[in-house]
């Protein structure tokens, strides 16, 4: 019963701030705030950049997770610590680091500017970079964990049956780690969506180009706190909807160990045979 009480306190901890927010919501102004051009642009920018950041995190993060889980190379623990470092760092610190490395006068940024004319700060690309920096660790961690739990004998069996490495990865490994991959992608996406500290430090704040929803909300707090309330509600609603919707559909389909083995072996055989 103690567990129930403690759990209830935990739920209250999360729910009460939201209740407080709804209590103070200026309902009569909701439409006016949401339909303003600035909010539309901020929302569109936030959604686009965060999805892009999640996608980039997957493209580069899955191979990294694979290396960390399956390949024993020297310095592996250092690489793992490095890849998850930004998860532990305050976002602003990440932003400062990005600024001094990729800013116009940064160690690498100055060459990006001189040779390619690429300026990351003050650009939408900079926003995506900041978001990938903070979000990718979530994906790497989740996928690595899923890969570790996967019985590599399934993949070995598929290989001996004649499947190529890429084929096996695509038809055996990926489907098996799907819950972990989706969970990681969703976490990475939501972290990217809510990213503030690194974005404001590195990419700046300009409506339409670099002003994401969190930034717009922060500034609204300065001049129009009621608008900030409405924007907060919007962000919460969007995040909540996605997290709620995806969880059941994708993560709830994790199979039990016994049936997993049987089904996987069948799946492996049939996948390779076709």
């Amino acid at each position, binding site marked *: 019963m103690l567990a129930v009480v403690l759990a209830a306190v935990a739920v209250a901890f999360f729910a009460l701030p939201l209740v407080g927010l709804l209590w103070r919501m200026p309902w009569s102004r909701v439409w006016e705030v949401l339909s303003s051009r600035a909010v539309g642009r901020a929302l569109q920018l936030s959604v686009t950049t965060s999805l892009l950041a999640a996608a980039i995190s997957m493209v580069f993060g899955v191979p990294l997770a694979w290396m960390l889980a399956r390949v024993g190379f020297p310095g592996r623990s250092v690489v793992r610590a490095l890849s998850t470092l930004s998860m532990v760092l305050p976002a602003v610190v990440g932003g400062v680091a990005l600024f001094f490395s990729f800013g116009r006068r940064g160690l690498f940024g100055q060459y990006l500017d001189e040779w390619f004319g690429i300026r990351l*700060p003050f650009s939408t690309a900079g926003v995506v970079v900041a978001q990938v920096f903070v979000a990718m660790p979530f994906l790497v961690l989740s996928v690595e964990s899923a890969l570790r739990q996967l019985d590599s004998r399934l993949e070995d069996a598929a290989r001996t049956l004649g499947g190529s490495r890429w084929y096996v990865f695509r038809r055996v490994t990926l489907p098996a780690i799907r819950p972990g991959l989706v969970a990681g992608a969703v976490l990475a996406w939501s972290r990217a969506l809510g990213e503030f500290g690194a974005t404001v430090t590195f990419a*700046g704040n300009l409506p339409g180009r670099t*002003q994401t929803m969190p930034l717009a909300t922060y*500034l609204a707090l300065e001049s129009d706190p009621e608008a900030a309330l409405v924007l907060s509600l919007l962000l919460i609603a969007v995040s909540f909807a996605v997290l709620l919707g995806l969880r059941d559909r994708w993560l709830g389909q994790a199979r039990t160990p016994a049936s997993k083995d049987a089904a996987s072996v069948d799946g492996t055989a049939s996948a390779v045979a076709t």
Partner: protein
Amino acid sequence: MRRAPSVLLLGAAALAAMATSCSGDSGGGDRVTLEVFAASSLTDAMWEIGEAYRETHPNTTLRFNFAGSASLVAQVNEGAPADVLVPADLQSAERLDAGIVGTSEVLTTNTLTIIVERGNPQSIDSLDDLARPGLAVVLAAPDVPIGKYAQEVLDKAGVVVSPSSLEASAKAVVTKVVLGEADAGIVYTTDVIAAGDTAVGVVIPEQQNVQATYAVVVPREAEHPDEAATFIAFLRGPQAQAILNKFGFGR
């Protein structure tokens, strides 16, 4: 089980430490903690004024809270304890829900200046130069007073600027310029002086410039209105005003 006592001791010590640090007013004597909420641009000047005040008023501890003026007003409206409020404009005090004690007084003024990197590599001489294509100009967001003032100045001069970013504070603008990320910005004269050698100020002529007026008020729900009044008298007195002048205010 053996570890429990030491953990409890540690916890008790931590709680005791927190309790003593929180009890600003209790304890012997007439010690009073005055909460002063001031605009960020006043940071350095206020610290020095605080030191001077402590010499003549040892029983008063000044606790400063620096933030954007609108933030400060919002905090007070949400119940944050402020004995003295010093916003960077005259309108902010009117947005206090509970009102003020007495009337609003003018504390000092500030003007705006263009800030550029040390050495002025882009050879910026006037507001017109800010409209030069390819220049990375950073302003403060119009949500904060300095951002509004900067826009007023640009409108007065008839210059149209496409900023690269609208920062959340004047200090952030200074940082971006000093670190070379932006070519120029518009900030308070006091910010340029505070930046010292790391930046160069380009004067904005008086006819294009705007004067920011700092008000000083006592919010209605101040806990120590009398001590607040004493501090405000000090702020408007010669010693504090000299300090403010030193930092670039009231010129």
